């Protein structure tokens, strides 16, 4: 019978994506054996995240500064905005190092079945960004899932009234494929071959 502390930690870890009760126990054991090294580093890193990470007020990215490093970077193209579903997609695209503009994180995708409506997503702030001017291109980088593509279609329609070039990732991607799982070469190709919507 493990101690209460170990049980508590294991059940907290078991809820992490990709882990389960068994892996969580393995992680706990591994950490306990490295109390003075790995565990300390992990503690410090977690504290840093808790104390310093914030959501960027412009794009919704998660960073230690606000606006985030991407929004604050003057070398980034200010006229192009790439809209993604989640922060994970932003990171995946940015790892591909091909897109030089800035991002906008929706925080999800439209889903009638899951009860996610337009007002539940960061769509209002996107329209405000576009309305305030200076943006020429919006890249809709939704996942190739049904909900992702519905969301892209919806956004394209809401953005229609602005003088913009609206493009979409070239989804030669496997359908149902989520950006987060794609390798950088495939992502770069999807970005390079982006095509006008409609």
């Amino acid at each position, binding site marked *: 019978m493990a101690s209460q502390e170990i049980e508590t930690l294991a059940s907290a870890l078991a809820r992490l994506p990709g882990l389960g009760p068994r892996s969580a126990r393995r992680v706990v054991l591994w950490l306990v054996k490295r109390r003075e090294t790995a565990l300390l580093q992990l503690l410090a890193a977690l504290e840093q995240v808790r104390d310093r990470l914030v959501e960027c007020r412009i794009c919704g990215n998660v960073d230690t500064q606000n606006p985030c490093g991407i929004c604050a970077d003057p070398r980034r193209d200010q006229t192009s905005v790439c809209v993604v579903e989640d922060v994970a997609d932003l990171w995946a695209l940015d790892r591909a190092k091909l897109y030089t503009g800035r991002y906008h994180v929706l925080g999800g995708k439209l889903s*009638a079945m899951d009860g996610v409506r337009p007002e539940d997503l960061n769509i209002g702030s996107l329209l405000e960004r576009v309305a305030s001017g200076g943006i020429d291109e919006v890249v809709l980088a939704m996942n190739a899932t049904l909900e992702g593509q519905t969301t892209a279609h919806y956004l394209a*329609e809401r953005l229609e009234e602005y003088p913009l070039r609206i493009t979409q990732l070239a989804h030669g991607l496997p359908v149902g494929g989520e950006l987060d799982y794609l390798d950088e070469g495939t992502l770069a190709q999807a970005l390079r071959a982006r095509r006008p919507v409609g």
Partner: protein
Amino acid sequence: MALDAITLSHFRNHRETRLDGARQFNLLVGENGAGKTNVLEAISLFAPGRGLRRAALAEIAGAAGPGGFSVGASLAGQPDEEALRLGTYTKAAQPGRRLVQVNGTPASAVGLGEWLAISWLTPAMDRLFADSAGARRRFMDRMALALDPAHARHAARYENALRERNRLLSDDRPPEAAWLDGIEAQMAQHGALLAQGRARTVAAVGQEIAVLPEQPFARPVLVYAAGGPAGQDAFAAALKSGRGRDRAARRSLVGPHRDELEVTMAGKNVPAASCSTGEQKAMLIAITLAHAQLAARGRPGLLLLDEVAAHLDPFRRASLFERLRSGRAQVWLTGTELGPFAEIRAEAAVWQVSGGQVERV
């Protein structure tokens, strides 16, 4: 190339079963519950989808085993041709997830269709003509999918989009037009391809049947009746203009989810559902054979006939064997006794099945 050997491990009542040296005709003989159909089901899992019982994967693994199952197949061709090994299995930790290997390398279940074309006829399908329209749509989809693996994707996408639209329409708040536009765009795109796939398949099977004689098997005439306008743009327009009506009904009233496969008996002009049990069975056989013939173009074909031969009179049975012999597909047949198979006994590979074990006779 043709299926040469198959192995079942912890598959329903088969703990470890190996069938070697398959031929064009393969007979599985044994009492009811012996595990004959389980072998056919195992083979059917080398097609994309849920197999001939449409069973949940988790219920397939043998109760006494480790919690997962596996099925392996090896296909042999010409002496200088490399053998092909296919495998599909589940693991105890994820009993609902089917994994696939081709020559030892992970592959997708959908991709299985590129290697083998599998058709089947089981007693459960006997009621097809009297069953719901949904059963016949599934039947069309399974036939279409065997001819074009992409069909499954359009069917799944359409089904998803339809659910989204119905949900949105039955909401008390009026749905936002731009959102419906987005959903309907995908319904139109995938729905049109889904409908085209069904129409193409029914036409091709119909052509294959049309050249057959009207005897001794009742010949069916197949008509695909579309549940919505043909073509992506026309369907999109129909969805858009039908929003008010569909909202009142709280569901979508046009589209391939309302498709129907209409079958009548040639010569008699009677709906298949009104024909005798024997005539219905004969028409099912005709459709299955025609489809197997089509599907086996360009890849090895397999035809699984569960409890089919015993219920035919000797004349029709002889005719069936004759047709199978000249067909492209390798055939697997089950029966409770060898008697009805006398005509193909000499050329067939025969296994006695009993209690989940097989023995070559």
